[in-house]
């Protein structure tokens, strides 16, 4: 982003990579797949790079409002200085926080989840989504809580998957009734409370019931939880967990 500023240019959109997308080895693959798609659609985008910092979502959900607002105010200072208008992110937690919780603190941007943004590129004819190697595969989509229930985005990821000419199968609990993967509310960063099962196992069982070839996700944390769930069920050889962006990019061998 700093380079754009130095050249006096403004990007079409800021890609908010997020902590998982920047540091987590699995999520980095999603970041790269999404970037490939942005390039192929000739989207003029920028990233904040080392100037990006955690949105504060896990701190806020853990109850540390103070830390959240410190993070938020700092990020807003940076984005406002760059006169950012539009943000896209591949993480529903960043998406929810940037979209809903930053405006009151002075950060008003048009915020899109990457599946919404890809859908808009598709609608504008800038991005071609074709079945390629996933044609006919059984895919089930796990709704991330912070994309679905939290913000009522259910159709964009499904529309993209349908374009891949896959056989989209729904789990018995989907859309607004979707079950959490177990990572939200800062659970990702702690051991679960004592119980008789982990939430991600319960959710993986929902997914396995649909006998999928691929479990599609739209969130790096859901991705981790579902991948762990599939490994726990020793199905990792037959079932892949992939982000919607990865599916589209891989279908075209980008």
């Amino acid at each position, binding site marked *: 982003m700093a380079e754009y500023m130095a050249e006096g240019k403004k990007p079409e959109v800021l890609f908010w*990579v997020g*902590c998982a*997308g*920047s*540091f*987590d080895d699995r999520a*980095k693959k999603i970041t790269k797949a999404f*970037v490939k798609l942005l390039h192929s659609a000739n989207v003029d985008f920028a*990233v904040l*790079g*080392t100037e*990006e*910092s*955690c949105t*504060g979502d*896990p701190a*806020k*959900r*853990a*109850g*540390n*409002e*103070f*830390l959240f*607002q*410190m*993070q938020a*105010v700092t990020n807003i200072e940076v984005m406002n200085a760059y006169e950012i208008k539009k943000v896209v992110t591949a993480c529903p937690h960043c998406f*929810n926080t940037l979209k*809903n*919780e930053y405006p009151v*603190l002075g950060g008003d941007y048009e915020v899109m989840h990457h599946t919404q943004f890809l859908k808009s590129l598709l609608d504008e004819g800038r991005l071609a989504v074709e079945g390629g190697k996933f044609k006919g595969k059984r895919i089930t989509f796990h709704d991330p*809580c912070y994309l679905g*229930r*939290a*913000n*009522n985005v259910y159709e964009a990821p499904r529309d993209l998957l349908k374009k891949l000419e896959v056989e989209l199968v729904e789990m018995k609990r989907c859309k607004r*009734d979707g*079950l*959490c993967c*177990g*990572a*939200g*509310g*800062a*659970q*990702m*960063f*702690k*051991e*679960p*409370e*004592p*119980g008789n*099962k*982990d*939430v991600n*196992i*319960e*959710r993986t069982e929902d997914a396995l019931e649909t006998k999928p070839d691929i479990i599609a996700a739209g969130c790096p944390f859901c991705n981790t939880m579902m991948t762990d769930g599939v490994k726990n069920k020793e199905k990792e050889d037959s079932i892949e967990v992939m982000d919607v962006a990865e599916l589209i990019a891989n279908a075209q061998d980008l």
Partner: protein
Amino acid sequence: MQYIPNILFVIVLVAGIGYFTKNIRKVIRNIRLGQDVDRSDKKGERFKKMAMIAMGQSKMVRRPIAGILHLIVYLGFIIINIEVLEIIIDGIFGTHRVFAPLGSFYDFLIGSFEILALLVLVSVIIFWIRRNVINIKRFKTLKGWPKNDGNIILYFEVVLMTLFLTMNAADLQLQELGAAHYIKAGSYPVSQFISPLFDGMSQSSLFLIERTAWWLHIIGILVFLNYLYFSKHLHIMLAFPNTYYGDLKPQGELDNLEAVTNEVKLMMDPSADPFAAPSEDAAEAEPSTFGASDVTDLNWVQLLNAYTCTECGRCTSECPANQTGKKLSPRKIMMDTRDRLKEVGDNIDKNGSFVDDGKKLLNDYITPEELWACTSCNACVEACPVSISPLSIIIDMRRYLVMEESAAPTDLNNMMSNIENNGAPWPFNQMDRLNWSDE
């Protein structure tokens, strides 16, 4: 002498409504113990939401069996209340079936009340079976008072509907016998089948049955009205304000604490003098607590939520933490909040103002283990048929644990210090943030 029933009726009516009013004022006072939150905006949108969710029962019918049965009882309750209006007028003025001059419309009214009464009876019996016979987890987990409370309400309904139909059946016999005072009016699609039970009875015993059923019915309604305050059943009234004042924001959005914003702004302001003496009003103002440890730290909408909850348990049955055996139950969060609020209210009634009883909502009712099990997935909020948010209470109590007591689980403390130190929940170097682009 002939006015004695009328006077008696007025006394019963005034006493019944008076005691109810007194208790409802307590409920309102208790709700007002909550912190202020502005919900006076967007009146149109709020009204629409109330019309859809409370009046239209749109979220109830998402579970079709319970939803449709509830819809019948709800409609029965509202429509049969027109009959209660007639009973009250008759009772005060000593008339009988004062609306009878409406003619065929009256026939239609009484006829539909009877059919509804029968449907309500059937629904309530199915409800009882669901609660006590069929193995439904969200009802099975209720023990003690909450379980009895749920059943008592159902018994009330059965008794009231039976009395209503008995009254009509006896009335029909009296009408056919041409008894004085009993004008021929109304249609009796249901009680005509009860009526043969009274065949051959004398006018005076029929009169006794009709009057007894009439009196017990109206007294029953007044007792039911007054029972509401002591039960979980206030939702029949509070569902309306609760959906009206409910949160309109996207479910994922949590409020930003203003007290914290002020602190953060002060820290970020280069011209702020860190050593300045606080201004006089600031020094006098009570320091605010961050988050909630007791009911008075919650806002009034959260307290209204607690009184509105009717313990149906849809929230808990959808909760991922609960389904996987964790201690958290969103329904319990709401029940605990109301129990504690009642306790605080009783304390105020007894002592004039609140005297510290050494108890708090946190720890004495809700344990940190429950709070930390939440994934903030909003399934409970989505499931609630009357716009209650257990999540907002959970988050406020986590805020207290973290910001007032620094009592977060160690893993979360590590996560938070990572964010503070290197801007990510994991211990990675901020300078490595762009490394993915070269890998």
